[in-house]
Each structure stands twice: as structure tokens, then as C-alpha cells.
């Protein structure tokens, strides 16, 4: 109990310490210097309707590349960590109910389609590569729940993951070589504002991210499931 | 103070005088000691007989040259103390070799003999001689504490280390003696004299009861003769030194002999009255009583 008391006291002091963040910090009245530029010049410079996407993929593209890398590392780490174990078949015998299986068969194509839609329209509407990738992975998860004995084609995952990652980097280099800098999307024509084929390389990048994220998450799920 | 070869002859002449004084005094003192102990005692010229007898004996075995070193060191030590001390103030004949060094030299020469003796005794291979030497050295180092302090005191008092200058400063009557001008230092000196003379209660090395074969008796025949010579000369040399620094020295032999005799009686009297200390008791005594007294004497000399 003494320990609990200590913890409570510490947390109380932490709250007291953080108090100025609640009392003194007012939300923005107006856009910050940087975001004003993004909002005002962003659509013209990058041709992306969704400014968040513009920021994510281009202005702060390195962050995103890093983010992809983090996810990639986590996947690799988990793969590295959870060594293949002999799958205990008896655990895998239990099958999901008919309801789930039928529902899965019905929903899976739709879910995958939705995922692809989300990352392809990342520069136009809310959403993007990560969101799309996660939706795709959720579809596969559903599949795994429905058919627990399903074998995921690991090497296909590898190929998707590796190649989409590599292409992402190559696009970055193209930006460096052909346009203003690493990860600059403007080496492709910006196209008409608001169209699917616009905003230079952003849709391509987001597609690659979507594929990669999807593949990675599936890989993580697969690894974790198999090690249970 | 240039050296002239004739000084060697002067020194030898002075040496023969002091040797005789020493022998006679030795005899007299032993007689006194015997009479106090209600014994008849020896004849006062017995030391002469002994020394002649011993010198005429020859040793038939030897433990090697190192064994010789004991007596040689011993006698050299005793003679050195004497030779480096000026005897008669103002006399060209009896200044000895005091030009070579001052009172510090004399002080350290006292040790020359002890150390050499110890070496020689060690070579003899007798276990008791080592014990005796160990005790003797321990005792001497402790007993020299007041001596050293007294000499520092005297040097402070006269601002000189030269025996000749110290004696010169005491000329002109008893009131100029250190005894009168600085009694505390003199008391310290007299205590030191007890230790230096190696008589009871500080007579550890020579105690035949404790060391059946102490250094003096390990050596026989002419070795013993040499040692006996030293036993006559060495105390005399020390006495002369004390006379010089505390009792005004002397301008002629008569005064010197008188002073030597009186001063020599002091340890004799103490010796017959007090029993002997054990070595550790004696060491402790020197550190416990003589050392503080020395500190007081030096402080008094320094500040009053």
C-alpha cells in the first residue's frame, strides 16, 4: 500500500507539474506561420487537395519515410524475434462459425477494395496510405479469423513489402535528381487540381505506402498468430 | 685551524692522561660501590692489573676479521668522542682534533662505537649477544633523547655548536656556567648523563645477570683489553664533554680532573641507590619523563 501511495503522490505531482499546459495553453487563434504557407501555397505548389497528405508525403516526407521504416523495423523485429515454432495443429483445429466464414467471404473483397480506394485517393479525401494499408490488413485479419488454418504466402508478402519500400526510396531519389530535393513529388506533372491523377508522385507514394503497410501488418499478424 | 702533524703527538699525550684518569676512577668507583654494599671490594689499581693482563693474552681462535671490528669500532668510537672534543680551554696542546667538527660530530660519534660494537658482536654468532645488542641499542636510542635535547638547548643558549665557543662563553666564574645560567637544561643534561654512562638504573647491556654473555665478555684476551681501554676512555670522554658544556670547562688539568671526578660521582651515587630497570621500562621512562622535561627545557630556553 505504501507503494501505491507513493505512486499516487508522484502522479499528483506530475499533474501539478503539467498544470500550466492546461491553464496557460490556449488553442491556436489562427494558423501558425508554417501552416499558413502550407494552406496558402500548398495546393498550388504540390497540387494536392488534401493538405494533410501534402504535409505528410512531401513537406514532411522524410518523417513519413521514417515512419514506414519504423513499421518495417517492427515487422522485421517481430519476425526476427518470434522464431518459427512448430505450429501446434490441434489449436488450429477450431474453426470459426459459419456466420463468420460467410460474412468474410462476402466482405473481404469489399474491404480490400475500400483499402485500395483510400490510399489511391489520399491526396483528395481524408485517408491515405496508412489508413488504406490498415484497412487491407484488417480484411486479411478477418480472413485469418475465419479460416485459422489458412497459409499466408509469406514470400509474396516479402516481395510486396521489399519492392514497395524500394520503389518508395527510388521515387525519393528521382525527386532529388529531377526536382527540388529528396522526396520532392514534383518530378511528375502536377495534373489538374482535384483529380485522381494529380499532385505529382503523391498518389504513387501513397499507393506504395498502402501496399507496404498492408503487407507489414499482415506479416505481423501472421507472426504473432503462429507463435501462439 | 690548520692541521699540523705535531697535533697527533699532542692528542696521544692527552689520550694517555685521560686513560689514566679513567682507570683510576674506575677502580675508585668500584671500591665505593663495594663499600656501600658492605663488601671489601677490589684494590683501586685493579683496573691497571686487568688491562695489562688482558693485553698480554693472545687469542688462539678467531671468528674472522668481522669479529675484530667490534672492539675496533668500540675503541675508535670512544677515542673519537674524546679526540673531537677540546679538553683544556685555551690550550694548544689539548685541543685535540676539535677543528674537524663541532658538538654534532661528537654526539654522532657516540653512536659510532655502539653500532660498530653491535656489528662485531653480531658476527660472534652468539644468540645472547644479539639480544644484548638489541637491548643496548634500544636503550641508547631512548636515552639519547634528553642528550639531544640538552645539546639543542645549549646550542640555543649560546647560539653556537662549537664546544670551544660554548666553553669560552662560560669563562669568568661559576655564575657564568650553564649550570647557573640555564639550570633546566643542565638538569636535562644530568639526566642524559645518567643514560650516557650506562650505569644503574640504565645499565642494561653490562648486566651480567641478564646477559650471561653480553658483548664485553664475549671478547677475551686482547680484545677484552681493547674494550677495557674503551671503558675507561669513553666515559671520561663523555664526562669531559659534559663538563665542557655545563660546568664551564677547564683551563688546566687540575680543574678538569676535579670536575670530572665530581661529575662522575653523580651517576655512581644514583646507580648505587636505584635498582635497575627492565629495557621496556627504561625506554618508557625516557619517553615519559625525559622527553617532556626536554620539551619544557627547550621551550623555557626559547621564550625566557
Amino acid at each position: 500500500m505504501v507503494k501505491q501511495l507513493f505512486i499516487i503522490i508522484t502522479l499528483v505531482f506530475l499533474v501539478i507539474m503539467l498544470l500550466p499546459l492546461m491553464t496557460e495553453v490556449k488553442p491556436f487563434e489562427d494558423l501558425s506561420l508554417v501552416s499558413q504557407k502550407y494552406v496558402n501555397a500548398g495546393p498550388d505548389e504540390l497540387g494536392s487537395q488534401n493538405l494533410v497528405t501534402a504535409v505528410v508525403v512531401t513537406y514532411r516526407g522524410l518523417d513519413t519515410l521514417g515512419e514506414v521504416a519504423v513499421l518495417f523495423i517492427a515487422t522485421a523485429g517481430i519476425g526476427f524475434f518470434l522464431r518459427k515454432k512448430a505450429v501446434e495443429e490441434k489449436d488450429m483445429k477450431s474453426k470459426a462459425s459459419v456466420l463468420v466464414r460467410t460474412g468474410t467471404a462476402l466482405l473481404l473483397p469489399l474491404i480490400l477494395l475500400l483499402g485500395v480506394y483510400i490510399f489511391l485517393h489520399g491526396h483528395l479525401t481524408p485517408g491515405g496510405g496508412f489508413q488504406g494499408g490498415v484497412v487491407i490488413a484488417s480484411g486479411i485479419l478477418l480472413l485469418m479469423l475465419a479460416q485459422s488454418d489458412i497459409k499466408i504466402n509469406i514470400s509474396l508478402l516479402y516481395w510486396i513489402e521489399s519492392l514497395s519500400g524500394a520503389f518508395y526510396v527510388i521515387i525519393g531519389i528521382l525527386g532529388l535528381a529531377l526536382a527540388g530535393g529528396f522526396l520532392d513529388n514534383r518530378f511528375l506533372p502536377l495534373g489538374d487540381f482535384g483529380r485522381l491523377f494529380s499532385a505529382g508522385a503523391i498518389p504513387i507514394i501513397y499507393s506504395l505506402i498502402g501496399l507496404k503497410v498492408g503487407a507489414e501488418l499482415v506479416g505481423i499478424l501472421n507472426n504473432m498468430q503462429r507463435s501462439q | 685551524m690548520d692541521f699540523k702533524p705535531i697535533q697527533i703527538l699532542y692528542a696521544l699525550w692527552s689520550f694517555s692522561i685521560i686513560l689514566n684518569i679513567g682507570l683510576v676512577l674506575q677502580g675508585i668507583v668500584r671500591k665505593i660501590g663495594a663499600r656501600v654494599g658492605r663488601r671489601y671490594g677490589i684494590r683501586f689499581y685493579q683496573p691497571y692489573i686487568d688491562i695489562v693482563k688482558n693485553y698480554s693474552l693472545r687469542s688462539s681462535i678467531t671468528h674472522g676479521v668481522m669479529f675484530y671490528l667490534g672492539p675496533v669500532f668500540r675503541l675508535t668510537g670512544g677515542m673519537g668522542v674524546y679526540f673531537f672534543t677540546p679538553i683544556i680551554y685555551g690550550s694548544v696542546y689539548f685541543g685535540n682534533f676539535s677543528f674537524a667538527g663541532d658538538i654534532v660530530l661528537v654526539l654522532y660519534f657516540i653512536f659510532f662505537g655502539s653500532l660498530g660494537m653491535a656489528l662485531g658482536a653480531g658476527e660472534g654468532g652468539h644468540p645472547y649477544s644479539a639480544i644484548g645488542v638489541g637491548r643496548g641499542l634500544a636503550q641508547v636510542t631512548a636515552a639519547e633523547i634528553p642528550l639531544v635535547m640538552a645539546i639543542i638547548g645549549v646550542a640555543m643558549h649560546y647560539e653556537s655548536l662549537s664546544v670551544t665557543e660554548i666553553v669560552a662563553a662560560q669563562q669568568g666564574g661559576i655564575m657564568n656556567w650553564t649550570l647557573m645560567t640555564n639550570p633546566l637544561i643542565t638538569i636535562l643534561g644530568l639526566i642524559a648523563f645518567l643514560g650516557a654512562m650506562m650505569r644503574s638504573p640504565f645499565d642494561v647491556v653490562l648486566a651480567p645477570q641478564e646477559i650471561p654473555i653480553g658483548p664485553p665478555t664475549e671478547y677475551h684476551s686482547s680484545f677484552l683489553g681493547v674494550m677495557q681501554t674503551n671503558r675507561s676512555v669513553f666515559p671520561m670522554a663523555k664526562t669531559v664533554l659534559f663538563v665542557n658544556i655545563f660546568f664551564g670547562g677547564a683551563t688546566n688539568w687540575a680543574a678538569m680532573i676535579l670536575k670530572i671526578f665530581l661529575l662522575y660521582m653523580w651517576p655512581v651515587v644514583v646507580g648505587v641507590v636505584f635498582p635497575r630497570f627492565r629495557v621496556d621500562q627504561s625506554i618508557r621512562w625516557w619517553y615519559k619523563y625525559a622527553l617532556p622535561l626536554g620539551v619544557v627545557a627547550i621551550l623555557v630556553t626559547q621564550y625566557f
Partner: protein
Amino acid sequence: MLIITVLGIILVVLGLWGMLTQKNIIKIIIGFSIMDTGTHLLIVSIGYIKDRTAPIMDKAVGNASQVIDPVPSALVLTAIVIGLAVTALMLTYAIKLFEIRKSLDINDFKELKW
């Protein structure tokens, strides 16, 4: 949007509470997730401007004065993904710990100390 800021901080503290008091490793990880979520809420709350809309410059939104700050939105996206990765890794650790010792009590893993 003060309410969201406060909510975010409450979530952070709540998450910490869970991390500090729960003994089950999975629950500790859940605590971490809650704390992470609180942080994300805080990020979002920072970018919000009263009475404005999402920064998607379609026909419905005419000019710059009508949208909120896009930067925190972009940041939160990154933060969420990273949080996901870290949580996944933590769970993997939990799996491995359970595999080795068949226990998920944090008090059972004290081999290394001092």
C-alpha cells in the same frame, strides 16, 4: 478545445497509473497504449482552431481562414503509426516472456539487478 487537452492529460496520467500499478505485462502494455492515445489527443487538440474545418481544399472550402492547422494532423498520423509499431513490439516481448517463463507477472522477471 481545452476539454480535449484536459482529457489527453487525464489519459496520459491514467495510462501511467496503469503502467505503474498493474502487475500483468499485457495490462502494462495497455497502460502504455492509453498513455500514447492521450498524447495523440493532445497533439490533435493543439492543431484545432474553433469553428474551422478539415484542411482539404475542395470546393466547399474557399480560403485559408476556414481550415485548421494541418501540421498536427500530419504529425499525429506519424505518431500513431509509430505507437502502433512500438506496441506491437512490446506485445511480441510479452509473448516471448510468456514463452520462456510461462508467466506474465512483471515481478517474475527480476534476474538482473544492482
